């Protein structure tokens, strides 16, 4: 047995040494220039909104490359790379390290338009219902149903929706508040919208980057929703949005353009209609950026910069007893 072991050991050592023949060079590096080039190239080949946003990525390279130097601190490198990604004006884009997370901040492009405390104190009362991810209650002496959906948690289910829609069946209209909802699981959107349509409906189209060229995209695919078999709400619905409405929130806002019984009230959304994809840099930080485009029913990708409301309304912070956006939605539903 001793001889067998002595035979195994050198064989194992030989093959361990030989495995390098199957691998390309080790690219792990903390070199600032290598990390800069890697990130710039990944974006250059895969980011989906250069053309729409009229971004000259070569010019961006020139601008930020000048800030790279040997020996710069990790903090400095992070700020340079994060600054470069911020040029994409996209919150599905960012850089993550153990000490910081870069972001653009589309929500700060517009004013704040939401305060939950005002709604509770002056409209809903503290006895509102909480069904799964939804908070809801009656407004206007029971004539309007109000549903606050702060995040697409991926937990929307039939029980939640059945209960809510049954409760507000006899109302004149329903308000779905998506202000400051920064997205999440888009499956929730299809679950909600399936309760608002009476026939299969194309909501929008989507296409995916499939090559390094600026216009290398897959064929547009239709996003469809079928009516749910159970309880549906067929009266008018107002969806409240603002600059903090992002990603799945913006997808929902875009989808409302295809639904005749739904109106969008508030401020332009933050966008985020490209699904994020990314990876790791040679130094171990992670990054992401958009690799798809959502297109409206005319196949235009223009809403990435934000889905505009049908009824534009801004909050007036001089009077903290009134939510102007909510008031306007109530008016639209009367």
């Amino acid at each position, binding site marked *: 047995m001793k001889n*067998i072991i002595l035979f195994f050991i050198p*064989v*194992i050592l030989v093959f*361990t040494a030989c495995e390098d023949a199957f691998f390309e060079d080790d690219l792990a590096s903390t070199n600032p220039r290598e990390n800069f080039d890697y990130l710039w190239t990944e974006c250059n080949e895969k980011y989906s909104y250069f053309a729409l946003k009229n971004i000259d990525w070569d010019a961006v390279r020139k601008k930020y490359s000048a800030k790279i130097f040997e020996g710069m601190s990790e903090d400095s490198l992070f700020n340079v790379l994060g600054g470069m990604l911020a040029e994409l004006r996209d919150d599905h884009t960012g850089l993550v390290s153990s000490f910081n997370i870069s972001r653009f901040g589309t929500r700060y492009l517009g004013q704040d338009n939401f305060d939950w405390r005002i709604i509770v104190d002056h409209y809903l009362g503290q006895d509102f219902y909480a069904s799964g991810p939804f908070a809801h209650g009656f407004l206007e002496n029971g004539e309007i149903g109000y549903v606050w959906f702060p995040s697409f948690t991926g937990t929307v289910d039939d029980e939640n929706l059945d209960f809510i829609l049954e409760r507000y069946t006899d109302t004149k209209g329903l308000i779905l508040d998506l202000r400051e909802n920064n997205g999440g699981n888009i*499956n929730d959107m299809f679950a909600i919208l399936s309760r608002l349509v009476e026939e299969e409906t194309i909501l929008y189209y989507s296409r995916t980057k499939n090559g390094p060229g600026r216009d290398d995209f897959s064929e547009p*695919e239709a996003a469809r929703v079928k009516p749910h078999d159970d309880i549906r709400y067929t009266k008018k619905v107002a969806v409240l949005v603002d600059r903090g409405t992002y990603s799945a929130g913006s997808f929902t806002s875009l989808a409302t353009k295809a639904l005749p019984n739904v109106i969008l009230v508030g401020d332009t959304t933050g966008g985020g209609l490209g*699904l994020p994809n990314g990876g*790791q840099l040679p*130094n171990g930080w*992670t990054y992401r950026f958009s690799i798809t485009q959502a297109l409206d029913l005319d196949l235009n990708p223009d809403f990435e910069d934000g889905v505009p409301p049908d009824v534009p309304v801004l909050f007036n912070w001089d009077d903290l007893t009134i939510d102007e956006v909510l008031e306007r939605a109530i008016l639209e539903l009367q």
Partner: protein
Amino acid sequence: MYYVKIFRYLLLVLALSGGWVLNSSAQTTVPNQQSERSGLSKKERRKVRPQYIGVNIGTNRIKFRDFATSPLFYEGWTTYVGVSWLKADRYRESEAALTYSFGNPETDFNENVATSNFNRFELFYSRLYHVGAWSTSSFNTKVGWMLNTTGNLRTTPELGNYALGLEAFPTLFFSFKLTKNIGRTENKERRQNLSLRTNIGLVNAAYRNGFIHYPGQGIEVNEPDIFKNYELNVAGFRASTGLDYTRYLRNKNAIQISYIWDAYHTGGDLNRFEMANHTLKFTLLFNTNNQ
């Protein structure tokens, strides 16, 4: 630089072939081979060929890199289990196996730790045929083929939306195997074998994401399909080697200790994938036909 590596790969293949070439120089036929074979019909030989069910357990040291999501290597130990079926004698060998490895390889470069929940499945079937001209009384040479499909299911939470990795690598190998009887006795029931098997990929394929790695693709259009952006890429290269020490027991069962090395590099561009496995396993072979 990359051509140098391919050259090293070729050297490796040559090195693996070395023992086979040296051995073939003996050119001695197996004693009694003709009489042994001519005494039985094909059907009878098949009937008396020993057949085993194997249960494997071991450990697998893996190292991989998925260029679609990272330029960094992930490395770590995984647990290896498997079941196999083997029907073999001096002239013919058929083997099938299903193995599963699981563990948590990670990268921690520059103190940025990312851990992959890694699952590897392997299914293969192989046939080997005796080459009398290259065999002696103590060495047995067989050549043949192996059809192997290896699949990886990986989740790396640190990678967020692109955490999931799912891929398959079907390969058709050319195989050759040298077996040396190292027992001190000719007693069939107590024999011991040492064998070295090498597999060189003839058709190397990879079924994995295409240009974009986005496992949840289709979710935005209400038609989630994990394979939506997948492509079958027939390119790259793969080789594997197995070193087995087998000891046959009086009850016709056997025990086996093996070291298996398997490495591959897929084709493709931004979605290339590299992986090496070093498996050390212990196998109980249960004889099922009392031969």
